[in-house]
C-alpha cells in the first residue's frame, strides 16, 4: 500500500511540474518574448485562468504527502526550513503580481509587477530544481530522523552539505532551462505573431541547453546517488522511463521544426514526465535519502497507519476523477489562442 502512495504522490508532483511548470516558465521568459504592454498582457492571459488551479497541485500533493508519509513531511519540511519559507515568499509575490498587475493602468504600477512576476517565476524554477537536487543527493539525516540544512556551506558534497552546492545549483539551472523551454512552448501554443516567433526561438535555444544539462546531469547523478543504478539493474523495465524522456526531448526539436505547436508542448511534457519518473524510480524505496544511507527515510519507515492509507485511497480516486474533469473542462473552455486585443477581465 505504501508503494501505491509513493507512486500517487509522485504522479501528483509530476502533474504539478507539468502544469505549473509552464506558467513558471512563461514567467521566466516573460521579458524575452513579450516587449510591449499588450504582448505582456497576452502572455499573462495565456496563463490567467489556469495558473491558480495549476498551483493547487502543489498544495494537494503536499496534503497527500502529509497524511501518507507524516514522518517525511515533518522531517523534510523542517529540514528544508529556510528554502521552503523562501519558496512561500516567492509564491506570494508571484500570485500577487499576476492578480494585481492589471488593476491599474499606470507606467509605474505595471512594470513593477511585471518585474516581480518574472523574477519570482525564475527564482521558483531554480529553487524547485535545487530542492530536487537535494533529495537526489541525500540530506544529513541522523538517527533522530531529523536534519537541518543551512543555505550553503562550502558548496561541496560532504557530510555537511548546504541547500546549495555545485550539484544542486546545476540541477537548479537545468530546471530553469527546462521550464523556460516548457513555458516557451506553451506561450507559442497560445499566442500569435511576434510573441509566437520569439517563443519558438527561445524554445529552440533553450532546447540545446536542456540537452547539454541533461547529459551532464545524468552522468553526475549516477555517481552521486548509486541507488539509481541499482534499481535500473534490478528492474530493467525501468529503462522505459529515461527512454520516454529521450523520446520527448527529441520530439520537442522535431515538432518545433515542423511547426506543430501542440505536439511540441506535449513532447516537452513527456520529457518532464520521463525525467521525474526516472528519478523517483531511481530512489525508491527511499523517500528521502540520507548522506549516511543507514538513516534514509523509506516508504516503510515514513508511512502512516494502514487504515488511513486504505480509506485515503477511496476518496483520493473520487477526488482525482473530479479534479481531472474540472481541468479538462477549464482547458477546453479557454482553449485556442489568446486574442490579441481581448480584455482578460471581461
Amino acid at each position, binding site marked *: 500500500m505504501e508503494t501505491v502512495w509513493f507512486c500517487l504522490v509522485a504522479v501528483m508532483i509530476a502533474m504539478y511540474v507539468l502544469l505549473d511548470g509552464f506558467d513558471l516558465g512563461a514567467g521566466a521568459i516573460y521579458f524575452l518574448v513579450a516587449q510591449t504592454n499588450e504582448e505582456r498582457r497576452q502572455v499573462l492571459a495565456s496563463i490567467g*485562468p*489556469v495558473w*491558480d*488551479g495549476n*498551483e*493547487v497541485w502543489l*498544495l*494537494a*500533493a*503536499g*496534503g*497527500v504527502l*502529509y*497524511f*501518507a508519509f*507524516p*514522518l517525511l*513531511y*515533518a*522531517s*523534510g*519540511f*523542517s529540514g*528544508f*526550513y*529556510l528554502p*521552503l*519559507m523562501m519558496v*512561500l*515568499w516567492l*509564491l*506570494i509575490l508571484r500570485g*500577487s503580481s499576476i*492578480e*494585481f498587475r492589471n*488593476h*491599474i493602468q499606470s507606467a509605474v504600477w505595471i512594470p513593477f509587477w511585471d518585474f516581480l512576476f518574472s523574477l519570482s517565476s525564475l527564482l521558483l524554477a531554480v529553487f524547485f530544481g535545487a530542492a530536487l537536487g537535494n533529495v537526489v543527493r541525500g540530506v544529513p539525516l541522523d538517527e*533522530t*530522523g*531529523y*536534519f*537541518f540544512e543551512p543555505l550553503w556551506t562550502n558548496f561541496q558534497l560532504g557530510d555537511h552539505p548546504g541547500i546549495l552546492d555545485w550539484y544542486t545549483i546545476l540541477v537548479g539551472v537545468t530546471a530553469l532551462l527546462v521550464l523556460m523551454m516548457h513555458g516557451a512552448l506553451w506561450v507559442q501554443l497560445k499566442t500569435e505573431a511576434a510573441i509566437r516567433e520569439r517563443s519558438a526561438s527561445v524554445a529552440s535555444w533553450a532546447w540545446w541547453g536542456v540537452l547539454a544539462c541533461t547529459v551532464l546531469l545524468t552522468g553526475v547523478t549516477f555517481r552521486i546517488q548509486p541507488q539509481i543504478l541499482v534499481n535500473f539493474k534490478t528492474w530493467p523495465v525501468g529503462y522505459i522511463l529515461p527512454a520516454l524522456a529521450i523520446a520527448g526531448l527529441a520530439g520537442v526539436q522535431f515538432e518545433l521544426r515542423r511547426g506543430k505547436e501542440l505536439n511540441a508542448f506535449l513532447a516537452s511534457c513527456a520529457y518532464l514526465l520521463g525525467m521525474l519518473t526516472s528519478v523517483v524510480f531511481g530512489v525508491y524505496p527511499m523517500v528521502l535519502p540520507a548522506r549516511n544511507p543507514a538513516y534514509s527515510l523509506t516508504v516503510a519507515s515514513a508511512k*502512516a*497507519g494502514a*487504515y*488511513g492509507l486504505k*480509506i*485515503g485511497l477511496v*476518496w*483520493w480516486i473520487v*477526488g*482525482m476523477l*473530479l479534479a481531472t474533469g*474540472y481541468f479538462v473542462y*477549464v482547458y477546453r*473552455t*479557454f482553449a485556442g489562442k489568446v486574442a490579441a486585443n481581448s480584455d*482578460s*477581465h*471581461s
Partner: protein
Amino acid sequence: MESAVDVHRLHFAFTVTFHYLFPQLTMGLALLILILKTMALRSGDEHYNRSARFWAKIFGINFALGVVTGIPMEFQFGTNWAEFSKAAGGVIGQPLAMEGVFSFFLESSFLGLFLFGEKRLGRVGHWLSALLVFLGSWLSGYLIVATDAWMQYPVGYRLRPGGDIELASFWALILNPWALGQYAHNMTGAVQTGCFVMAAVGAFYLLTSRHIEYAKSFVRVGVVLGVIAAVVQMAPTGDFQGVMIARHQPVTLAAMEGLFRSQQGAPLAILGQPDVEKRQLDNPLEIPSMLSFLTYRKWSAHVSGLDAFPQDQWPDKIELLYYSYHVMVGLGTIFIAVMAVSVFLLWRRKLFATRWMLWVLMLSAPLPYIANTAGWLTAELGRQPWLIYGVMRTVHGASPRVVAGNAWFTLIGFMGMYTVLSMLWLFLVYREIEQGPEPDEKPSTPAPASRPATVN
C-alpha cells in the same frame, strides 16, 4: 520570548490571523454573491447581475490574497511543527489533503470561469459557476474546521506502538460533533463579515449620494441576512460551543470566564480585569448566577473555577484568552442590536433616510473581523497547554532542529511582506469601492431599464 516554541507559536498565530482576514470575507461573500446571482436569474433583472459583478471584483482581490497567504499555513505544519506532524500527520493530514483535492481544485477551476467567463457561460452556466465557487469555499472551511476540531476534541484515533497517532475511524474524524458545532459557528461568523461589509459599502454610497439603487440593494441584502446570522451566531451555534467547552474543556471555560473560584450559582463576568497572580477579577461587573444558568440551565448549578484544576492544566495565557472571549461575545451582542435596529428601520421604510444608522452600519465594517479573530483566539488559546487536547502538549510539538533565530528570521519576513499586502489590499479594495458598481466601459444592457424593478 526565550524558547523556540514561543516563536513558533507566534509565527503560526501571526500568519493564520492575517490569512483569515480574507477567507472570512470570501466565504461570506460567496454566499451573498450566489444570492445576488439567484435574484438576477429569477427576476431577470440585470441590476442584480451588475451588483454581483461589482462584488465579484472585491471577492477576486480578497480571494487572491487568501490563496497566497493560505499556502504558508499548510507548509508550516511541517516546517515549524514537525514533531506534531510526525505524530499526528496520519490523522490531520486527511482533512488537509481532502481540502486540496476536493475544495481547492473546485474553487480554482470555477473561480476563473466565474470571473472571466460570464459571456461564454451564459446565465445559468454563470450562476452554476457561482454556486460551485460557493460550495468549494464552504467545503474548504469545513475541512479546516474539522482539522482544528480534532485538535480540540480528538476522536477516531489510536496510538501506534512508537507513540505516533494513527487514524482509526475516518467518519468519526469527519463527523466529529465538535467540528459540526464549530463549523456552524464559524460560518455564521463569515456570513456576518460578508453582510457587514456589503451593508457598509451600501451605507457609504447612500451617505455620499452615489449609486443609490445599488446602495439600497446592498444594505437590504446585508442587513436582512445579517440579522439572521447575528442571532444564529449567538444561539444556537455559540451556545452549543459553550456547552461543548463546559463538558470537554472545563478548565478552558473557567479561564475564559475569569472564574478563579469554583462555586454554585456562578456569576457571569461582563467586564473586569483578571489578575492571575492574585487569582481574582478586578473591577468586576457581573450578572449573578448567570454563568451557572448558561452552562447547565440551572441557576444554582456548580461551576468549576480554575482552582478545581492543577495549575499545569491551565491555559498559559489566561488574560489574553479572557479578553478574546469577552471581545467576541461583546461584539456579537452589539451585532444583534445593530442588525435588529437596521432591519426594523428597513421594515418601516426609514432605513435609507436614517443617516445616523447608516453611519453606524458604515463604521461597523471592521468589527466582525475583530470578532472573528477574537473567536479563533479564544478557541486556540483555550486549547492550551495542549496541542492535541489531552494527548500532546504544545511544548512537545515544535520542530526540534529549527532554532528560535531561524523562526524569527522568517516571522520578520512574513511581517514585512504582510504589511505590504495589507496596504495593497486597502488600496485596491478602496479603489474598487470608489469606482463603484456601474462599469463606465460597456454596460451590457441600457442602464435605465433595470431601475423600475427596485423600489424601496
